[in-house]
């Protein structure tokens, strides 16, 4: 299904696609700042693209945001401050990792809820099967006449001597 993702990316970016995302001239001279900028860029969404971070995207908007992130970092902002600044300007939509909030609680707890629900279900299922141990085959649906004939055929019982096998 990647085809369609690739298509979507191609359409979103138009004819200029694809070139590089991060351009050589954007890179900051201070490697520590640059690596922080790259890490931050991976967390931020290019809002005109489909599910791409500004680090991956070649769209002009992504470029502007990358430059903005670098400007804020060289101005001495902390990572958290840069994130705050961008969410202030563009809303929560810009964060690829949503913040923990009341609306997002279900999202963040999803793995835990799934595990706990599964474990509880499991305990109940085990208890139930222990409480009612299996009664061997007594209540299994018996074979139909046609199936009886098949069994006999497979067992090689001559037709005349066939009787109920199971």
């Amino acid at each position: 299904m990647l085809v369609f993702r690739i298509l979507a990316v191609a359409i979103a970016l138009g004819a200029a696609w694809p070139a590089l995302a991060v351009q050589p001239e954007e890179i900051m001279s201070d490697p520590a700042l640059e690596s922080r900028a790259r890490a931050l860029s991976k967390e931020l969404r290019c809002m005109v693209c489909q599910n791409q971070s500004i680090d991956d995207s070649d769209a002009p908007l992504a470029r502007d945001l990358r430059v903005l992130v670098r400007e804020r970092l060289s101005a001495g902002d902390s990572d958290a401050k840069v994130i705050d600044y961008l969410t202030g300007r563009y809303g929560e939509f810009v964060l690829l990792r949503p913040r923990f909030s009341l609306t997002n609680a279900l999202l963040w707890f999803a793995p835990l809820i799934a595990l706990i629900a599964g474990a509880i279900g499991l305990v109940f299922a085990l208890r139930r099967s222990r409480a009612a141990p299996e009664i061997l085959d007594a209540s299994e649906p018996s074979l139909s006449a046609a199936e009886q004939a098949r069994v006999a055929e497979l067992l090689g019982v001559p037709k005349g001597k066939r009787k109920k096998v199971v």
Partner: protein
Amino acid sequence: MIAEIGHYALVLALGLAIIQGVAPLIGARLRDDTLMAVAGPTALGQFAFIAISFAALTACYIQSDFSVVNVYENSHSAKPLIYKISGVWGNHEGSMLLWVLILALFGALVAAFGGNLPATLKANVLGVQSWIAAAFVAFILGTSNPFLRIVGGPLEGRDLNPILQDIGLAVHPPLLYIGYVGLSISFSFAVAALIEGRIDAAWARWVRPWTLTAWLFLTLGVAMGSYWAYYELGWGGWWFWDPVENASLMPWLAATALLHSAVVMEKRNALKVWTVLLAILAFSLSLIGTFLVRSGVLTSVHTFASDPSRGVFILAILILFIGGGLALYAWRAPTLKQGGLFAPISREGALVFNNLFLTAACATVFVGTLYPLAIEALTGAKISVGAPFFNLTFGPLFVPILLVMPFGPLLAWKRGDALGAAQRLISAAAMALVAMAVTFAIAGGGPVLAPFGIGLAVFAMVGAMADLIERTAVMRVAPAVALTRARGLPRSAWGTAIAHFGIGLTMLGIICESTWGIERIVSLKPNEAVTVSSYDLTFDGMISRDGPNYRQVSAKFTVRQGGNVIEVMEPSKRNFTTRETSTTEAALMTRGASQLYVSLGDANPDGSIAVRIYHKPLVLFIWLGAVVMAFGGLLSLTDRRLRVGAPKPARKSRGTLQPAE
């Protein structure tokens, strides 16, 4: 004319599908052999007509018949033949036709090779399968007809999107669709079992090979898609946690869980109710994937609402099959008898553990993928859930799976000996510790988690082999004896070990690539050089070369290692004239399982060119692991008990004269 034949054949297929969806089900209810026998021929006929339809569309593409809208919009006479053919499914209408073709193929396979199925089960399975086919053929005919004509056809087509003009398009969608759609058989078996109200170990034995087939194609399809994105998109990533990718990952996770729970059901007659539910869920996730990709709902809830005809149709199909399947489950599942007691520490217990975590991982991906849609629909607020979220939540769920995985095959059914299994894994654990220590010593300053990841991957890989080593006694007896023992082992044991080894391999690749990958982004003028890892790359200059339907500009790089020229790499950009679009073709140099990856950017006015160069250590293990997994699946599929486990009706006796009754 050819297009009309294709269109007409599709209408006939719909007719047959409806008959096949009704008569056998009634027949199974009334125990009427004649009505039930309708299923076989109609399934074969349905497949034949859809195949004719698909062949007709392919013929239109090969002949470049631009009076057919679909061909006009997605093809070009100058396109190489292979892309003319793969272009058939490089668009919405054609890909849906491929979808139903594979659906009908699976139905036909059950009809042809399901001779040993009980008559009512076979009739019900084919009936349910046909309902799915009918719904999707109606969808194609109603909203996505690929055979529509333009009056006075244009002379030239608009060409296929250049990014799709790649061998990846020829391979990836068919593989993925075989996997996706193959799960429909497990679904049909589950629904048939619920209709009959009867399910036993034999049912699991019939379902398992079909699920295994679907799973191995799905594995290859997902891996192939990932590799395609890696080399074609040109930014070196191989998994983006895109909703469209998640749409293929979710069925894979569910199918993997189903594969394991079906083993428990087949061997121990336990987990019946759960297995049936998983079979329904696995295909439901395939359908949801189709819906997500096909309806446009991903871009925004609003684009979906603005052109809803296709989306609403698929949504209706979705509700019908998922809702219907689950409702039937809720109604009938309580009547299914649970059986097969087991202690928590046992083979069953390990498989249940596997199921718990795989399902939780699947649920996480599901919630993460759909949460933004739900929030937007409910509150109007827009949020994004992307790679950072999934890396943080999905990864930890896979760690316990990998840790427990080597234990599973070493535990006995019913009641296992954890201590004994642990003792047999001591050498695997020791090797994992050594690997951790070595990693830590070499890359001490790196990420703290990386050595643990390497240790875990090594534990999974060596541990996967523990069962084989134990059972062949290769360490204790003469090689010849061990070889004989190895031959005597069931192929499913080999399959399990190899597939488990594969997942460890994939994990090793992921960790190495993401931790020690190097990226350099530079502007280079001709004759300038750059060093990446142990390689020196010199930019020699630009070369122009034209292809059949594009113009290509390549940059020539000479790669040296220790002063010796080892390779010439030519990353390029192609400009496709018809669509006025361009693509970058990354150049790859493979050394062992590691790759050097060079991708071109824009040329600057001063004659320099921007390039992105990556060194990706052991990156090929990511996909090689998936191929190994699929190979394990294939071995398991050829296991004796699946080949001859349920014998065919004795053909020999049929040939001889039978006494009159």
